[in-house]
């Protein structure tokens, strides 16, 4: 009831500001967008994941009953014994660990950049830096991934340079070592880390930094005791986005991943594609989604950040 009143008040405000026609359009557009592009596909997937993989003719027939088969498959594999599906589970764990690594790495390299953008550079210089950060993202993600492949290839710039300087003797296979993959993933979502951080730090009063210094804080303490606590919502929001997108990335692992390293999304993709088992693919996608959300919520709880803070 209270929510309903809130929505009514919100809508009334919208009408007051934009007129009825525009308000109706906005509400309808946002509603349709959320429903059609977010809720509906997820619900469909969710529903799909509880069905048997049946040929089209049998869909809706008497054999089309609800089942936990696909979730059981994730846990137990195809065998009937007590063995666990170690392969898929370890891929999931590895994907999560890699996503955490990429997130932390992004956080570590973006924090100083965001801080400098927000607090130590003039407005004009900051705008230029932002532009320089954005421009590379005008290039398609897949092209960027291929660029990394070339960069890290056995005759790529990095190997050529390393050998010319004499750092290493023969070409290093960065692809097999997954260096290229991590670098590519880290680079792919840097902006999603920098901007929330920048936003959060930007509003911090510079006098607080100086006050902290004046009261005896070292430069490091200024960050640990003043800036980071203040930027926590931004850190949470940036980290969540980077983590979710990295864990759900497909193009970069496909292009840059080593032959031995499978990303969980690749398994999902295989079930949908070559595996021809959409319900199982759906179940795997659901598993990834739920595990990621659970992990994010847990982490936020650990660092005492509220969900609401992320929206800021």
């Amino acid at each position, binding site marked *: 009831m209270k929510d309903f009143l809130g929505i009514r008040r919100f809508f009334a405000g919208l009408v007051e500001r934009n007129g009825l026609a525009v308000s109706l359009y906005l509400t309808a557009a946002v509603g349709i967008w959320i429903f059609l592009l977010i809720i509906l596909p997820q619900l469909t997937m969710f529903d799909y994941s509880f069905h048997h993989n049946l040929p089209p003719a049998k869909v809706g027939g008497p054999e089309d009953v609800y089942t936990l088969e696909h979730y059981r498959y994730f846990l137990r594999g195809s065998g009937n014994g007590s063995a666990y599906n170690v392969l898929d589970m370890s891929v999931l764990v590895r994907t999560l660990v890699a996503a955490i690594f990429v997130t932390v790495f992004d956080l570590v390299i973006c924090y100083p950049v965001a801080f400098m953008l927000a607090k130590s550079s003039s407005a004009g210089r900051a705008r230029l830096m932002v532009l320089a950060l954005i421009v590379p993202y005008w290039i398609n993600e897949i092209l960027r991934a291929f660029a990394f492949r070339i960069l890290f290839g056995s005759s790529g710039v990095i190997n050529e340079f390393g050998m010319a300087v004499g750092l290493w003797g023969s070409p290093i296979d960065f692809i097999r070592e997954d260096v290229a993959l991590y670098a590519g993933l880290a680079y792919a979502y840097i902006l999603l880390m920098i901007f929330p951080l920048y936003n959060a730090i930007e509003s911090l009063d510079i006098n607080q930094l100086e006050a902290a210094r004046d009261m005896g*804080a070292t430069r490091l303490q200024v960050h640990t*005791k003043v800036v980071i606590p203040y930027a926590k919502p931004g850190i949470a929001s940036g980290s969540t986005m980077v983590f979710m997108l990295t864990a759900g990335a497909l193009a970069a692992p496909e292009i840059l991943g080593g032959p031995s390293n499978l990303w969980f999304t690749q398994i999902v993709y295989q079930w949908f594609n070559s595996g021809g088992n959409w319900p199982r693919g759906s179940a795997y996608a659901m598993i990834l989604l739920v595990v990621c959300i659970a992990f994010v919520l847990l982490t936020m709880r650990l660092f005492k950040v509220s969900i609401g803070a992320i929206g800021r």
Partner: protein
Amino acid sequence: MTKEVSLDHVWVEFENFVAVEDANLTIAGGEFFSFLGPSGCGKTTLLRCISGFQEPTLGRIRIGNHDMKGVGPNRRPTALIFQNLALFPLRSVADNIAFPLEVRGVEKRERRRRADELLEMIALPGQGDKRIDELSGGQKQRVAIARALAVKPDILLLDEPLSALDLKLRQHMRTELRAIQKQVGLTFIYITHDQGEALTMSDRVAVMSRGKIQQVADSRTIYDRPATSFVASFVGENNAFAGTVLAKDGQGITIDAGLGVPLVAALRADSGVTPAVGEPCHLFIRPEALVPMTSGSPNSFEARLVKEEFEGHMRHLLLQAGEHQLRMSLVNNGLGGSVAGADGRLTVGFVPELAVALPLGLLASA
């Protein structure tokens, strides 16, 4: 512990703009010292030099005989209170006050004990667990002071700390600041562009204009014996007359101020630089030094009453004499009646001791 602060020919330049020009003074330990000047005259810049956020381009700053060159703000025995206080909004009142202890690794219980002690001192006992935004303006002010005092600095620097408060609270905080200073006995270096604040609270005041220190003296001297035309016109109300020196002897200096009669200002042993005979000069007469006189008295001139403002205990008269507009203030004796004749004319004058003659200089623009 009190330590003196000395500025030794300090200059600060920003890309060819001189913000502080040859500041040279010593502030004694335990003194309440104010910098007074209009906006943009370099007060904050000077304070930032003392606290270590700004390196002087030239010159030296010493605190208690230690050269501060290269010593970071976190290692100076100073505590700065920012104009906007810069309290940490995410920390409780007690955690704000204990911040300086926290960064020095003081253990948690001891921090809390010290914070409670300071809360006691600033008359906010038991309020340590409040959030900063639950405090009133004056309370925040006091928390900022407590935080600055937490590690017992030798020198407290205050950058217009009262400017955000309303008049009543400001007056109250002035008395409180002064009381705290007496109680803890440290050196206060106080910045303000409010002259009432500077004059009432300070042991000594430095008046600044365009990066240059004009005069350093106690309040009474600043007001009664200004050293430059800027000080005379900036501090309090003053009538300024540009003129030429006609004569000068041991007692006084006679000036043609364009009023048709020569006017005499007394010279005293402590009158600083005075203009020489034949030189252009400024003559300053405060509104309260002007009094009605009988026509033909020495040091008197004719004027026309333009307007009268009534302010209860004072009557402020706006007069026109020659091409000069001047102000005269009289204590209201309760009898009323106009000071001017029916034609609006009157004779006003002053005793030479209450006038000040200075070399022609820049005036503070009103």
